[in-house]
C-alpha cells in the first residue's frame, strides 16, 4: 500500500510538471482566444468586431434562397448567417462541391464599408452527420429532422 517516499516525491514532481504545462497552455489559450478562431461569425461582424478592408474569414450557414448566380460569369452572391445576424457575400470563382444553401461555409476576403463581404476564397464546412442517401430521403419524407444532428446543427 505504502509508496516509497522518494517515489512519492517524484510523483509530486510529475504532477507539478503537468499542472505547470496545463497552466501555461491555459494562459496561452486565454491570450490568443480570439486569434485561434478560424473565422468571424456574422454576429461578430454585425457588432463591428471584424476589421474592415483587411483579409479576414467569415463563417456560418448559407441562407436558404439567398444564392444568386450570374448567367454570364462565375459571379455569385449569397448571404452567410448564424441565425442572429447575416452578411452578404460576393464571390467570383468555382465553388466547392459541397457548397449549398443551408450548408456551412467559410469565406476568406475583405469586409467593405458597404457591409458586403468580398470573398476571394470559399470553403465548404460540412457537419458531423453521416448517413446513407436512403436514410436522409426517408427522414425528409417523414418530415422529421435527422436524428443524427448534434448540438452543432448551425455548423458553427
Amino acid at each position, binding site marked *: 500500500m505504502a509508496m516509497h517516499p522518494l517515489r512519492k516525491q517524484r510523483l509530486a514532481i510529475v504532477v507539478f510538471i503537468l499542472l505547470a*504545462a496545463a497552466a*501555461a497552455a491555459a494562459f496561452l489559450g486565454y491570450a490568443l482566444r480570439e486569434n485561434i478562431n478560424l473565422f468571424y461569425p456574422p454576429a461578430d461582424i454585425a457588432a463591428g468586431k471584424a476589421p474592415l478592408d483587411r483579409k479576414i474569414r467569415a463563417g456560418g450557414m448559407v441562407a436558404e434562397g439567398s444564392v444568386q448566380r450570374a448567367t454570364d460569369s462565375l459571379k455569385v452572391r449569397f448571404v452567410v448567417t448564424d441565425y442572429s445576424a447575416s452578411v452578404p457575400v460576393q464571390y467570383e470563382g468555382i465553388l466547392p462541391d459541397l457548397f449549398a444553401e443551408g450548408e456551412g461555409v467559410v469565406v476568406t476576403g475583405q469586409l467593405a464599408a458597404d457591409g458586403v463581404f468580398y470573398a476571394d476564397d470559399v470553403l465548404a464546412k460540412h457537419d*458531423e452527420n453521416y448517413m446513407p442517401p436512403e436514410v436522409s430521403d426517408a427522414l425528409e419524407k417523414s418530415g422529421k429532422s435527422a436524428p*443524427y444532428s*448534434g448540438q452543432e446543427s448551425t455548423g458553427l
Partner: protein
Amino acid sequence: MANWAWFHKWGSPRWFYQFSGRLLPWLAVPGLLLFIGGCVWGLLFVPPDFKQGNSFRIIYVHVPAAAVAMGAYMFMATAAAVHLIWRMKLAAMVMKVVAPIGASLTFLSLVTGAVWGKPTWGTWWVWDARITSVLILFFLYLGIIALHQAFENREAAAKACAVLAIVGAVNIPIIYWSVEWWYSLHQPASIKFIGESTIHPTMLRPLMATLSGMYLLFGWLVLLYTRAEIIDRERNTRWLQDMLLTDRPADSAERGA
C-alpha cells in the same frame, strides 16, 4: 509490499520479453483482420454518404489514425511518468519506441485529412485549431525522437524525453476539444462517448472495426519494437544470450559459444 509485486514484475525486461512473445500473435492476427476487413467493408459494402458521396470513405483510415495517434501519445506520456517516478527501464524503452509509431500515425492522419479536405472543404490545408494542434502533436513526436538522439547518455535522454512527453500531454485535450472551443473548419466528433453518435450504424460498424484493428496493430508494433530494444540493451546479459543461443540450430550455437 506484496501488493506492488504485480507492478514490479513489469520492471523485469526478461519477464516482459517472454510474456510479450506469447502475446504478439494475439494482437497481430485480429488487428490485421479487423483493420483490413473493416477497410474492405467500408470501401466496398457501405452506402455512400448523402452529402459527401464516396469521399467520406477515407474516414475508415483517417479517424483510426488520428485517434490512435492521440491514444499513443497518452500511452507514451504515462510510460514517461512511470519512468520518472519508478525509474523503470522498461517504461523508458516503451516511451522511446512509441514516438516513431505515433509520429507515423499522426502523419497518416494529416495526409488523409488533407486528401479528404480537398474534395469536401475545397482545400488541402487550413490553419484552424484542430489541424494546427494535430500538427503540433506531430512536431512533439519528432521532438521526442530528436531529443532522444541528441543525448549520448541513455539515462539523461530518457529523463529529458519523459519531461517533454509529459509537458506535451496538455496538447491532447486541446486537440480533442479544439472543435468545440473555437470556430474551426473541421467538424466536431461524430463518435460520441455520451449520447448517440451522429454517424449511421451501417457506417459506424466498419469504422469500429478499423479503429479497434488500429489499436491492436499499434499494441503489436509497440511490443515488437520494445522487444528489439530489449535485445539491443540487454545483449550482454546472461539470460538473453542463453535464450538466443538455445533458439539457434545446435551447430551455430556451438560455434557461438
